[in-house]
């Protein structure tokens, strides 16, 4: 009569040991695979996030550079002699307007500096960086509007 191999104690023990090893290998393999997938996902997300923040930081930089350009127009206006009473503001600067520009610059430049520092902070969230960009753009717009309202910049 032929005996089945698993009925033999030594063969059965070997078989079960190998099966256990195979199951353990599969389990570890699965978890290792999951770990690798998660790692790639994390690295990928971090890389995308860093790239987006770099773009936002560049936009904050561009807004700040635009602010400098607009500020130079304000400086040119301010550098003119102050208008005499009743004088039309051509070739002269209105003392009240100069005061407004100066006040606006103090506010706007403080907002810009805060926005720049925030955008440059490593690991800052995208939403915070986006808020910093909005603040920077608003600061530029504020000075620009004042110069437009007083006819120093033409629309």
């Amino acid at each position: 009569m032929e005996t089945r191999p698993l009925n033999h104690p030594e063969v059965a023990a070997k078989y079960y040991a190998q099966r256990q090893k195979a199951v353990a290998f599969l389990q570890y393999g699965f978890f290792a695979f999951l770990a690798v997938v998660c790692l790639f996902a994390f690295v990928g997300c971090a890389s995308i996030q860093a790239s987006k923040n770099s773009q936002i930081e560049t936009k904050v930089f561009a807004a700040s550079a635009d602010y400098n350009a607009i500020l130079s127009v304000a400086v040119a206006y301010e550098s003119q002699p102050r208008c005499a009473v009743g004088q039309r503001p051509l070739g002269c600067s209105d003392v009240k307007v100069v005061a407004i520009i100066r006040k606006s610059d103090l506010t706007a430049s403080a907002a810009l500096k805060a926005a720049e520092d925030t955008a440059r902070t490593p690991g800052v969230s995208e939403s915070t960086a986006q808020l910093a960009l909005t603040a920077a753009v608003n600061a530029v717009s504020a000075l620009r509007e004042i110069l437009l309202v007083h006819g120093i910049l033409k629309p």
Partner: protein
Amino acid sequence: MTFALEIMNLLPLIMQGVAGARELFEWGQGQVASLGEDGKPTDEMWAELRARRAALQSALHSDTE
């Protein structure tokens, strides 16, 4: 986000300021263009930007009492 149009349509009375504004505007554009797609401004670029702003602010507030 550019204000080139406004800068190029300044009142004649501040024509002297136009050159400075245009130069500053073009400097910013050039710096950003040099960064490429995913580049970000270097510390040196930020330092120069802030130095330029500080110089302008110093001029603007020069005779503030």
